[in-house]
């Protein structure tokens, strides 16, 4: 009963968001069962139309579109999640360090982040990927590092608002160590804004990876990835075929779903975002 009641309090948009997210997780986890063919397998002619055999037709090399979209869920979402986790660990750690230590530590970290953020993220990523190459580990590191600047900003500002409160001052007067303050005083009070931010960052990273792949410097072929699938099959669009935009739709649905959930969390905790 209580469970039902708590669900009825959730707005329909957020509920829909959760259902969609669970569906994606399911597809990603069981891709090898859901997909009729392998992601690298060439199974037919190039660009064949929708049929019983190939649900969404085949791509520019004759691979099954539907299977690649299913595997794309695992690859694209997996990479984006990994990057978001990395970016969060780095950004939060430095943000909290800056907030607690203050003084020159804060000044130096904030200055460095300001500089990194003053170069447009996409341009910076393109520059770095040109220099360092486009292997998957490089891609993950570069994007995570660039994105961690945003996490740093948020974590630092949330933590700073807490550090000035009397209860943290009382603990500092007691002489508790850095990790104790971070672990017991700050983090428990940062859960809500950080959860919402995780959703926002995930969406951003997800779109960003897709954009890089679309430009040809993200996830590299032959791995099935939604961004590069659009790029590879874009020619079909000029013939009025909607198949190439389906991976784009898959991206859009997931980000909308996550955004709906984030919106609900923010509304619940009285926060807001723009």
């Amino acid at each position, binding site marked *: 009963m209580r469970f039902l009641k708590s669900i009825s309090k959730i707005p329909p948009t957020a509920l829909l968001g959760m259902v969609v997210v669970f569906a994606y997780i399911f597809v990603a986890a069981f891709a090898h069962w859901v997909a009729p063919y392998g992601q690298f397998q060439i199974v037919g002619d190039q660009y064949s139309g929708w049929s019983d055999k190939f649900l969404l037709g085949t791509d520019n090399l004759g691979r099954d579109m539907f299977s690649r979209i299913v595997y794309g869920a695992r690859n694209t979402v997996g990479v984006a999640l990994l990057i978001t986790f990395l970016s969060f660990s780095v950004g939060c750690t430095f943000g909290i360090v800056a907030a607690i230590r203050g003084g020159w530590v804060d000044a130096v970290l904030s200055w460095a982040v300001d500089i990194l953020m003053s170069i447009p993220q996409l341009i910076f990523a393109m520059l770095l990927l040109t220099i360092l190459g486009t292997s998957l580990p490089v891609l993950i590191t570069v994007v995570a590092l660039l994105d961690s600047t945003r996490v740093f900003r948020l974590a630092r500002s949330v933590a700073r608002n807490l550090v000035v409160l009397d209860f*943290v001052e009382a603990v500092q007067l007691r*002489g508790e160590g850095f990790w104790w303050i971070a672990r017991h005083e700050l983090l428990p009070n940062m859960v809500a804004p950080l959860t919402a931010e995780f959703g926002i960052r995930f969406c951003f990273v997800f779109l960003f990876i897709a954009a890089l792949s679309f430009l040809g410097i993200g996830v590299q072929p032959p791995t099935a990835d939604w961004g590069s699938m659009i790029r590879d099959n874009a020619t079909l669009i000029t013939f009025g075929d909607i198949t190439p935009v389906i991976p784009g739709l898959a991206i859009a649905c997931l980000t909308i779903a996550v955004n709906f959930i984030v919106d609900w969390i923010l509304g619940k905790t009285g926060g807001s975002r723009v």
Partner: protein
Amino acid sequence: MTDMAIRQDNLLTVRGLKIEARNAEGDWHEIVHGVDLDLKRGEVLGLIGESGAGKSTIGLAAMGFARPGCRISGGSILFDGIDLASASERTKRALRGARIAYVAQSAAAAFNPAQRLIDQYAEGPVRHGVQSRAVAYDDAKQLYRRMQMPEPDTIGFRYPHQVSGGQLQRAMTAMAMSCRPDLIIFDEPTTALDVTTQIEVLASIKDVVRQFGTAAIYITHDLAVVAQMADRIKVLRYGCDVEEAAASTMMSAPREEYTRSLWAVRHMEKPAAAPVEEAMPVLSVRNVTAAYGGRRKVLENVSLDVHRGRTVAVVGESGSGKSTLARVIAGLLPPVSGQVLMDGGVLAPAVANRSRQDRQRIQMIYQMADTALNPRQTVRNIVGRPMEFFLGISSAEATARVSRLLDMMELPADCANRLPSELSGGQKQRIGIARALAAEPQLVICDEVTSALDQLVAEGILKLLMRLQQEMKLSFLFITHEFATVEAIADDVVVMQHGKIVDQGTRQEVLHPPRADYTKALVAAVPQMNTGWLEQQLQGRS
């Protein structure tokens, strides 16, 4: 309308007023439960009550206004024959500003930062078609002069942030007067001001209200203030009527026990302490000068002693440096020069360089219990951690000690497993005290610990502190701006102004009678409970 007789000469008649508010889940619940009000032309009604009494909500409802998240759900609000509870927005808009005006608590927030004061003054009269802009300007200057604002001819051309708090509050009152309304609602207009500023503003308000024969509803939590301003006083609690009487009757012979409790702290007076026995003070501040970020000095050459088992009260208005003094002693703000000594030993200026034992010996209690306790920790952990940290005892031992300490704080034992949000304001402040005592300190710095509390709760906290002091031979450095609190708890008094010590000594020496000129001015500005006090003060000056 109700069948109750409505007096013909009433300006405002409120019957059975009910107001609802929406909580976080979006459900409506009643916060004002059927209140009646009667106000004659030219009469001043005082509305008094503690936090949560619904005073401001009722005051705004008298204008037919409900803040976002509130709604008037029942009753009638009859203003000069018009029912504001059911009137159209247009009707209400025509009345607001023109015939009913409002003075907010924080004038600094209530003035538009992007407009000059005089333009905001003129907006009402011009929009309501009472005066032209030029006439309104002249009128404003005259009112500013009448209200004894400095440079009355030019002050209106300033922007709000260029004018001090006391002046802004007067400008706000002048603005409310601009259309010569029949009724003004004053919502705690002097609560945010220092006492010496407050008396000036009170005098100005009282003068203009009397001059124009304006009726007023004066909302405050301070009985002494309302006694000066109101003809009749109505006491509210939890959105219900408690009692109503003429001001003098209410002050001399309140019917309800609750009303009497509203000035609980004023009844307290600590018995004079025995003279100091030990030569060595627990805490000794020597010639301390301090500044924030190398700018203007906030403390200048401050010296004081706190002896074992005694309470030193530091009094002063905002900006006197009293809180900065606490920060210097605690090691949060290393002084520019001077020393802080504990039992004769010099303490490191910054808390980071102090030994664990030194940190243990000084503990702080804060003003706002809400921000002083971590909302995500149970009371057991909040109070238990200092024990584990300083005394090195096991977790089980700490749990046992916490429950003994909570018992000493007169708190129920099951408090230990609760979060701060599940406790009342007074209980939270007791947890704050328990946390300080858990470290077994010698000196406790109390920073305005009762200022945010209702009188009855404050009385309980003060009594608790005194009992603990006797039992544990504690020394208190008690920072406050209220003389009633000083009388209730202090053995020694330090009076501060602009970062310097004006006077210090035993309470008898400093306050009975006030020794320094500044102390005299401060004490004289504290409103007293008799209704004629403000007049006497003003007459005494001229």
